[in-house]
Structure formats: C-alpha cells, structure tokens
C-alpha cells in the first residue's frame, strides 16, 4: 500500500504515505520534526507556516501581578466552552444526562467535572458519615460497612472506562444525524478509580455456594437496582470511592459506586448502599425493560453485560473543521470491555484503504486508549474512519454489517433518543472541500 509522495511542486517530502488520501506512516510521529519539515518542504498545500511574524510584545498579564491562588482550581476563563452538554437543565421529573466533550479533550483520562453522568432521579445529596453499605443474602455473615470502615481496607487503583449502554445510540438512526462527537459518543469516559475490591469484602461475609448473582442497589431516589453475575463480583468488581485521586463526584455516585470494569454503565450502580447475593437475577426494571435491546425479528437481548470494542475519531470531527490543506493529526479513542486494545486502523477514503495508527502508551485493559495518525489533507473530499481490534481478536464491524443484525429506526429519531443500545460499529466523518466535517454513513 505504501507509495512515495510526490506533488505538484516536484519536491518529495521525507515521509511515506501508507494508505489512500494522505495517510502517513505512524512512525513519522516518532520524529515529528520530519513530518513538519516535510510539510514545509512541500510548500503550497502542505505549508504550515503563515505570513512573517510580528514583533513580539509583553501581554498585559506579563506586566501585572496575577490573581490569588484559589483553594480548588478550575479551568481558565478562556475554557468556558469545554463543558458537558446537559439534556435536563431544569431538572424536570425525568432522566438527566451530561455528555463528555471528547472533541475538546486529549489523552485518556476524563477530567472529573467532564465525566459523563446519567441520573434517573437527580443527583442525591448524601452525607458520607451516614451512608452505609450492606452485603447480605446468600452470605454466611451479613455485614454493614461505613465509609470510615472501608477506608481501612486494602485498596487498589485501576484506570478504566465507564460507558452507558446507550452511548452511540444515535447511530441506530436510519439516516446519519448531524451532530458532534459529544452528542453521538459522549456517554463514555475514563478515570482512575480507587477503592476496595468487592472480593475483599466477600471474604469477610463468606459466600453461600448457592449464590450465582448479586443485586446491587443505590441510595438515590429510584433506589436503582441491577442484577450482576457473582462471577463478575469476584473477578474485578470494585467499591470505588475515589476518582482520579479525589472522592468520586456526586454525579458518579458519591460516596461510593459499584465499578464493574468493561460492563454496561447502568450496572455500575452509583450511591451504592446494598448488595444482596441470590440464586437468580431480580429482573429489575432496568435489566428486564430499559436495558433490553429489541432486535429486528421482535426478540430482544438482555444481560448484554459487555461494552464491546469501539473506537471513534475525536479530531478532526464535526465542528472541529479543517482550516486549510496541510498536515493534521487524526486522533481518537479506542476501548474494549474485554481487555486491551490491540490495534487501530484508520482510513481517509471511506474504508477503501487502511493504515495502522500509533497507540499512545499506556495501553491498559478496559480503558481508553489514545490513537494517533498523521495525515496530509490535500483539500479534497475525504471520509475518515477508525476501526479497533481488542486483544481477544474482536473488532468493529461496518455500520451496514452491524445494523443488518441489530436493526435501525424507520425514521430519524432525536439525537437525544435511544432507539437501541450497545452500538459499537465504525463511525464515519466526511470532510468537504472547505474543510467542513459531517457525520455520514459510509
């Protein structure tokens, strides 16, 4: 697939195109200067240098004393647009959701205030001193734990994502809905979570051998409850109390949540107050109705625990248009509920040709993995796609393949709607000749 670049100017820049429409070998990222030197050398369409610089002067901030340091720093006033979108700002009696602005973030850790949140009865105001976690049911010793008690247990920290089962649901629409990556894929975020492994607490309660499930319940007003296989509880489930080093946010379940790495967001019960071990699932509202997915033949999936392998390009993306032809970095995030990301391929020609993206260290299991791909946009139409593989060999399908099995709507729904869940096929961004970017099906 590799072909040496040549352009109208006659100079060959010292980088290799590895797939159609301007994708450059990811190894160029190792020597970034080479890429940019190449771009400059190419001149014209490839140029990144503008008119001659003006003489430099001190800004007013360099000529006066700065502000006092606040006890808790928030982002610069110039970053006011880097916020979540909220779909129930007036707290009407219904669900409330806030979506992560992926197009404005880099790296793999979502800042705590920008982590996506869904609450089914508002955000409760829980006094941590009065909060209790009870583990009972098919155990030998039912026990109640205070937050203070849990603080004395051995803790672990792990980086991992949480994704709503309904993330990316707009892509079930029969026509591509025009919105940005925040609206389409903003119900997934990634943090370092710290807490006590549930298995540590189950050692103290003991487990009746008949137990096969555990039903988790929150202290919020819907007393949200979900049945979880006990196998997951013993594998890597965590009673998470810290998020990126500080106590978890109110919207994330303060003072504690159940964290089930790689499993459907709604199962990661927030404001966790009770876990009951049982032989059978409870068939709660959320598992038997809301998070059961209707299939084209009229049957429905349920207990779709896994958030399967997914990736999407965060830049360039709708609303983050290209200013002029030249060198850009295509970047995005990939993740899988089954383990590490093994490979991400990127296409700039709608899937006709692909090139392997660079994966940014660290590549952690069940966590966001940042991928990068150098690209020279020549000013013509392009369709950008990413496709991820996980270490289990699972990969993303094309959208056409995916909806053939899982269905799509018959008419366009609201971009805030949830026609179905667990969409993990390929997303396509179309670049037009002006550098504008639209969401398309390709």
């Amino acid at each position: 697939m590799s072909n040496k670049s040549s352009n109208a100017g006659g100079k060959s820049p010292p980088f290799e195109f590895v797939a159609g429409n301007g994708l450059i070998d990811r190894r160029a990222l190792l020597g970034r200067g080479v890429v940019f030197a190449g771009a400059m050398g190419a001149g014209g369409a490839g140029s990144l240098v503008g008119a001659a610089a003006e003489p430099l002067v001190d800004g007013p901030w360099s000529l006066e004393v700065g502000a006092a340091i606040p006890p808790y720093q928030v982002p610069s006033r110039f970053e006011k647009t880097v916020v979540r979108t909220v779909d129930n700002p007036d707290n009407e009696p219904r669900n409330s959701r806030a979506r992560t602005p992926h197009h404005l973030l880099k790296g793999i850790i979502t800042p705590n205030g920008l982590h996506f949140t869904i609450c089914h009865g508002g955000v409760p105001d829980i006094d941590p001193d009065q909060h209790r976690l009870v583990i009972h049911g098919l155990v030998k010793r039912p026990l109640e734990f205070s937050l203070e008690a849990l603080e004395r247990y051995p803790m672990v920290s792990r980086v991992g994502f949480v994704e709503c089962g309904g993330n990316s649901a707009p892509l079930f629409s029969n026509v591509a809905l025009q919105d940005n990556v925040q609206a389409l894929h903003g119900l997934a975020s990634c943090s370092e979570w710290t807490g006590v492994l549930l298995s540590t607490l189950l050692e103290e309660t003991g487990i009746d051998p008949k137990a096969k499930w555990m039903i988790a319940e929150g202290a919020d007003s819907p007393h949200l409850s979900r049945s979880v296989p006990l196998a997951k509880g013993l594998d890597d489930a965590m009673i998470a109390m810290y998020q990126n080093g500080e106590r978890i946010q109110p919207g994330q379940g303060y003072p504690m949540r159940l964290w089930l790495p790689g499993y459907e967001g709604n199962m990661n019960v927030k404001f966790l107050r009770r876990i009951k071990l049982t032989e059978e699932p409870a068939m709660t509202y959320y598992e038997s109705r809301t998070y059961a997915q209707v299939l084209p033949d009229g049957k429905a999936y349920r207990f779709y625990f896994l958030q399967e392998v997914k990736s999407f390009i965060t830049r360039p993306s709708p609303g983050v248009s290209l200013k002029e032809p030249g060198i850009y970095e295509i970047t995005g995030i990939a993740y899988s509920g089954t383990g590490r990301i093994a490979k991400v391929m990127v296409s700039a020609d709608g899937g006709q040709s692909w090139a392997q993206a660079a994966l940014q260290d660290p590549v952690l299991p069940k966590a966001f993995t940042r991928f990068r791909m150098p690209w020279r946009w020549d000013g013509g139409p392009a369709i950008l796609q990413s496709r991820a593989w996980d270490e289990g060999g699972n990969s993303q399908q094309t959208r056409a393949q995916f909806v053939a099995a899982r269905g799509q709507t018959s008419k366009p729904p609201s971009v805030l709607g949830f026609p179905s869940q667990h969409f993990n096929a390929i997303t396509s961004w179309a670049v037009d000749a002006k550098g504008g970017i639209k969401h398309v099906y390709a």
Partner: protein
Amino acid sequence: MSMRKFSIGAVSLVLAVAAGAAFAEGPNLGKPVSPSDLAAWDIFIMPDGTGLPPGSGTSAQGAPIFKQKCAACHGENGEGGIAGPLIGGPPHASLDGGKTIANFYPYATTIFDYVRRAMPYTQPRSLTDQEVYALTAFLLARNKLIGETDTMNAETLPKVKMPNRDNFITRFPDRI
C-alpha cells in the same frame, strides 16, 4: 465438607495468622446486620414472588390512586405525558420505540418492585404495600393482562402470564 477437611482448614488459618499474615483475614470492620435491621431496605422482589409483602389490591382500588399520584406525569389514562406511557401502545416494540408493559415486560413482579422503590417520582417509598398492589393490579388490568376484578397479592402476582416472557435472549450466557 468432612470434619477432617474442616479441621485441616481451621489449622491452616491459625498457622497463617500466627505467621503474621493478618491481611489475609481482613480488617473485619463490618458490623453484623440482622434481618430485622434490614427490613426497611430489603425490598427486592424476585420473579417467583420471593420478597412480596402481605397485602393485596384490585384495579378498582388502584384507579383513584393512579389519578391522584401518577396521572400528572403518565397521563390521565396512562397514555403518557412528561413520563412514559403505561397503558396501551403498539402491539410490538421496535427500534422506533414502544416498549410497553403489555408487549415487553417479561415479569409482572417488576412492576411491583419498581413502583414501590421508585414511584411516585417526587415521593419514592411513600406508597403503602396495599397501594402498590392496587396500582399494579390497575396497570395489569388496563393492559388486559388480568381481569378487571382480579386481586393481586403475593400468590397471584407472580402467576400473571406476560406475553413477551419467552422472547428474550441472554446476550452473554457464558458470563453468568
């Protein structure tokens, strides 16, 4: 477990503690909690009816409660308002919507469990068990899943036949 195996296990535990492996035993800071301590919280209802409390209710008893405590959000006749519909709807759910009690819910016990734990939206846990039985009967009767005069209680509710029960596929059975 035989007595012999049990005593070997007990001896190993003593040895482990004696060797200083105190962490293996854990901090043991959980407080024992009795069933009576748990009574107000232990509200899970299982599909076989386990957990259903004493009491009963009929659709006729549920109608005025629905009007007073549910209709503001779910509509005068349960047709939906700012909250979803609870009565009627299309014969089948699809990706265009329309999951209803009649065409989708696999177990009638879920209605009791959810109404008792989460409704009314602004006053959860305010309904008596009698009221929850009555509202459950009202919703099942108006959806023609039980007769208008049928009584719902711990015996009858788990036996309600829900039409869509056998249409579910467990997506990841190997993870259970």
